[in-house]
């Protein structure tokens, strides 16, 4: 089953590149929703069956695959924007940087000691690459929505790493982290709606009135 998990992780990496390379916000939100669903399925592939696992899968798929994308989609529709028009850094350079970071994360993971059973799989590099992609989206995009998408991708990267820690992380803490993510994104969604009302756009580069002279 683990090799199947590896193929899913490749898919996760591809979705990183889709989010890095697309200017269409709705498309990007959908891509991240698919990523969320994949992340929900992954625990089922690497751990033996239990009802507890089914519950976790259901929660993650609902939250990451449906609730959060729905929330962001609503913000996009209400602000009537479709595209990230002028990112701080163009799409091609971002994609190249994304590729570079992905390569570096494989290098980084290769230098760290791992359990023999994780040695041949890509959990660690995929996690770090996804984290870096999220960070890249966060820092290169202007629109508040894109920044939230970046934050979600970053959190997904952390989540992948969390899959290796089933013994060390109690369920309650895992659930708490997920709940924090949901509430955080929810609050961000509200703030986005307020930004669009206040500035009639979601362009965070308009948020400059607090600059230091």
């Amino acid at each position: 089953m683990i090799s199947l998990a590896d193929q899913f992780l490749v898919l996760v990496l591809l979705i990183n590149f889709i989010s890095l390379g697309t200017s269409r916000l709705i498309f990007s939100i959908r891509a991240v929703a698919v990523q969320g669903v994949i992340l929900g399925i992954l625990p089922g592939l690497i751990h033996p069956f239990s009802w507890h696992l089914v519950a976790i899968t259901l929660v993650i798929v609902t939250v990451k695959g449906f609730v959060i994308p729905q929330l962001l989609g609503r913000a996009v529709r209400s602000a009537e924007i479709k595209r990230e028009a002028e990112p701080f850094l163009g799409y091609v350079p971002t994609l190249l940087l994304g590729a570079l970071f992905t390569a570096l994360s494989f290098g980084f993971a290769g230098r760290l000691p791992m359990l023999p059973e994780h040695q041949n799989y890509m959990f660690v590099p995929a996690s770090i690459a996804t984290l870096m992609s999220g960070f890249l989206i966060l820092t290169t995009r202007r629109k508040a929505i894109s920044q939230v998408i970046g934050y979600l991708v970053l959190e997904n990267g952390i989540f992948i790493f969390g899959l290796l820690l089933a013994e060390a992380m109690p369920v309650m803490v895992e659930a708490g982290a997920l709940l924090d993510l949901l509430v955080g994104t929810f609050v961000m969604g509200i703030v986005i709606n307020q930004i669009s009302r206040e500035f009639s756009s979601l362009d965070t580069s308009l948020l400059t009135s607090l600059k230091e002279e």
Partner: protein
Amino acid sequence: MFAALIILPLIGSAVTWLIPYDRLRPKVLAFFACVHFGITLRMLIYTPSESPGGWFHLDALGKIVLLSTSILFMTCAFYSIGYLFYRRERSNRLLCVGVLVCLAAASMVTITHHLGLMWVALETTTISMAPLIYFNRNARSIEATWKYLLICSVGVALALIGIYFLAYATIVAKVEPSLLLDDLMRDAGKLSSGWVHAAFVFLLVGFGTKMGLAPLHTWKPDAYGEAPGLVGALLSGGLVNLAFLALMRIYQLSLATKEIIFFQNALIVMGLFSMVVAAIFMAKQADFKRMLAYSSVEHVGIMAVAIGIGGRAILGALFHLLANSLTKGVLFLASGNIHRSYNSKNTDHVRGALRRLPWSGGLFLAGFIAITGSPPFAPFISEFTIISSAFIQGRMLIGAIFLISLMIIFIGMALTVLPMVMGEVPPESEATSYSDTVWTVGPPLFLLLLVFILGVWIPAPLMALLRDASALLEVH
């Protein structure tokens, strides 16, 4: 006991949520904050034993942070009764609920020894404060809220991956997989140094962002500048200490590994850089709340440098944690009053505060004298301890940069504060309905009194507590 500390504020937040009257809500808030303070005092005197499994354990470090947080929240809750009376134009429901949720989460951070749970609680404090920064509902405050929420959330998320790295290190080392501080400290020697090093880098960046150490401080001036004074006090005196506590937990852990030298040096560099940045931006700051934000950057820098130096400076850092929290309370609450009275926080408009608001103006001036480290106030003692420890240990360069920054900051802050409180009220200054009342002046006065008392006399139990706590952070 542990449960009461967290559940009571949560019950309080549910009650305030249900109350339909804006006038009643702050009083309920004050009631629950008082109860929380009562429980805190009881827990300090009769320390509850460690919970089964070791998840909850109130040690000396936790006690100091819990005490300072509880005093500050209680005082701010009383202040809110007076303050919110002048903000009747909007509902205060979210504010009161947010403060109590934050108090519950903050208590959780201080009593838990489980790094994962600590992370969850810390992130909860970040989120629960976001609606409070947006209290003024205008374009500037939304900008501040957005920066705060995004930068702090990302920062704390990076800390989570650091915690995950630590957990994975325990799995790789084939010791009992755990995120309990005590287990990690016991097994720290066996953990793979690669994972631990990577973890510490992420944890330092993550908690450093939340604490507002330069260069990760960019959200701070905006958030503190646009939030109501009450919220500024809670952020700069309360949340900052929680992030510092998290850093101290990592410090405890690093003591048991080879990473301690790296961690100490990183703290010294970031701390000194924060002080220098604060010194540069403090000068000619026309917005007095933003000035206070840079003062907060300075003081987190002082605390970071102090635990970086080690030795007696650790005692200074812990006392500074308490002193800074109380003094920031005085300054932010008084600045909130001045802001209400002038309806401006620009020093071009705000002049002669001592004439217009003798109490608030006086408190602001006294707070300024205290925070810049002048006797007879508490920050003097702590800063003096830290500097003398730096020189005794022969860290001349660190001591020199520290002293010079303090001096420049004193001058820069004086250039903003003195014209504000002295002189004549500008004739074109608009008249507002605000006037000093017992409810808006009493709370900051109470804090100032504490700052003064701690400056001349440290009670023996508190001193014992500080010694116990600093022993936890000393190299053996």
